[in-house]
């Protein structure tokens, strides 16, 4: 930082001038350093996220003609998307995906909340060990975990062959695989550890003396949970819900492996559009509509929970 020499010259220019030039430089200097540090990462994100998104939006307004791309702008793709009478598949699948994701999210939260509660309040020692044990399976291959469920739920799979060999059933159960149920179980399993962490953190942070005070003031354990614990854990629970909901809407691996035709989701269509059908503009349009819808749902959800929280605080 050898600006002292430069500044010595500025000194002779008179007190007023020196001060303003100096001050501007120094303020710039500190922030400038910050921006400089941020720039490599920002550039990476700009190139790999922002630019592609812009490109995606742009291409959604174009048309694919055979192997060539007609770059003249048109809203055709979006019209097709909303054209329920002729091409119901898009809206249907989008709504179905939203519904399945929402259900899977609710299922996931319902499954992991008690566990998070257990960890926060009933486990005294080695909480970190527990967390590691719970989260580690999540870090293994997503693909493999879904595949494992295929293997479990299948016609000749583990459950069926196990139940048959135990003599509990004669014929394999058919409703286990290749439908929405399978997709939802698999999704819940895949994301459960991810969802557990935010809920656990917000439960853990609750000041225990608040609970003691509530008990002291006459609340039964159940009321205490409902009036104190649950509302305070809402921020974490909401985060968890979002963390599960948003990525699952676009999932295509799970539906492909365990969903059959009944369990197909919008992600599969997008994949096909970019793959076999080779209609990137349409695929882009569908992708963007999916993202938009997800954002909309999330905003409504967040707005709704703010209302819910206000209601809860009056209980």
């Amino acid at each position, binding site marked *: 930082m050898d600006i002292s020499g430069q500044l010595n010259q500025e000194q002779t220019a008179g007190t007023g001038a020196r001060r303003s030039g100096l001050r501007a430089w120094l303020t710039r200097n500190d922030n400038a350093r910050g921006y400089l540090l941020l720039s490599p990462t920002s550039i990476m994100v700009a190139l790999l*996220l922002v630019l592609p998104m812009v490109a995606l939006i742009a291409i959604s307004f174009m048309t694919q003609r055979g192997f060539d791309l007609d770059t003249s702008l048109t809203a055709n793709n979006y019209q097709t998307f909303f054209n329920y009478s002729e091409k119901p598949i898009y809206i249907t699948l989008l709504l179905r995906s939203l519904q399945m994701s929402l259900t899977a999210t609710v299922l996931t939260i319902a499954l992991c909340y008690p566990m998070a509660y257990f960890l926060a309040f009933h486990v005294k020692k080695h909480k970190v060990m527990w967390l590691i044990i719970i989260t580690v399976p999540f870090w293994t291959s997503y693909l493999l975990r879904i595949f494992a469920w295929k293997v479990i739920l299948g016609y000749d799979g583990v459950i069926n062959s196990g139940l048959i060999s135990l003599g509990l059933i004669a014929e394999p159960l058919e409703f286990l695989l290749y439908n929405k149920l399978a997709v939802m179980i698999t999704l819940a399993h895949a994301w459960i550890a991810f969802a557990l962490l935010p809920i656990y953190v917000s439960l853990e942070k609750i000041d225990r003396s608040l609970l003691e005070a509530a008990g002291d003031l006459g609340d039964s354990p159940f009321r205490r949970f409902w009036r104190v614990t649950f509302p305070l854990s809402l921020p974490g629970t909401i985060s968890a819900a979002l963390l599960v909901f948003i990525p699952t809407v676009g999932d295509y691996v799970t539906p492909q492996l365990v969903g059959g035709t009944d369990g197909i989701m919008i992600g599969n269509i997008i994949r096909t559009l970019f793959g076999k059908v080779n209609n990137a503009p349409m695929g882009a349009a569908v992708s963007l509509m999916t993202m938009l819808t997800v954002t909309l749902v999330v905003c409504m959800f967040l707005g709704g929970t703010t209302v819910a929280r206000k209601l809860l605080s009056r209980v």
Partner: protein
Amino acid sequence: MAAAAETRSPFIKITPIGAYAAFFLFFIYAPVLLLPLFSFNDSQYVALPLKGFTTRWYVEMAAAEQLQGALFNSLKVASAVSVVSTVLAMLAALALTRYRVPGRALISGTIVLPLVIPGIILGVSILVVMVQILGAEPSLWSVGAGHLLLCTPFGMLILISRLEGFDRSLEEASLDLGENRFVTFFRVTLPLAMPGVIASVLTSFTLSFDEFILAFFLAGADPTLPVYIWSQLRFPLRLPQVLALGSIILVVSFAVIAFAEWYRRRGVQPDAKPG
């Protein structure tokens, strides 16, 4: 839901919630443990009852050339990505925790955004840029780029939490004693942030190694390991081999991440307060 303080025994008491915890763990681990179980099963089909122990699936798997190629590809990509993403994550984490730069909320939000955008959309958008705009062929480079986008935010979040735990005056003390910011980073910040750095590298490595969705869209002629596995899923005969491969990946990932987590939580705490 009585928050009873059971201090007598370190084991779980058989309460309803304790039973639930057991079920929960079973639910998480059962599918995952199934893979190694059946990889040693002497049968073409993944079904009960078990038919006997064998290691031949592992042998067959190891011999498959395509598999070795895919494995090597994955290792290449994961190694490069883990290092580059950690460097980028560290730069960003330093900037965000040490400087009051205007607009940093926006920038940090954008960096983390890939975590909440469905992978398929990230994949297709990068694909669009590559194929339609640049006219390039997808390759391991594009896979690496996609993984970089995904791994950097993870590393950044890990490092931010590590750097924020710092006593800020440690770096100021170093400056005060005559070292400039560059040297201060290497003499003070880095040693104390090292557990976070290691965690970031290991986490990014595992993430990239296991990642399928982006790799599927962005890989060209050279598949990564998950993409290879996907292609094998069509062949029922190859199923047990896939199980063998999957089991190994499972165990290794498990070990790496467990180690990273453990390492991250140890190490000298840089927020030592005056006793």
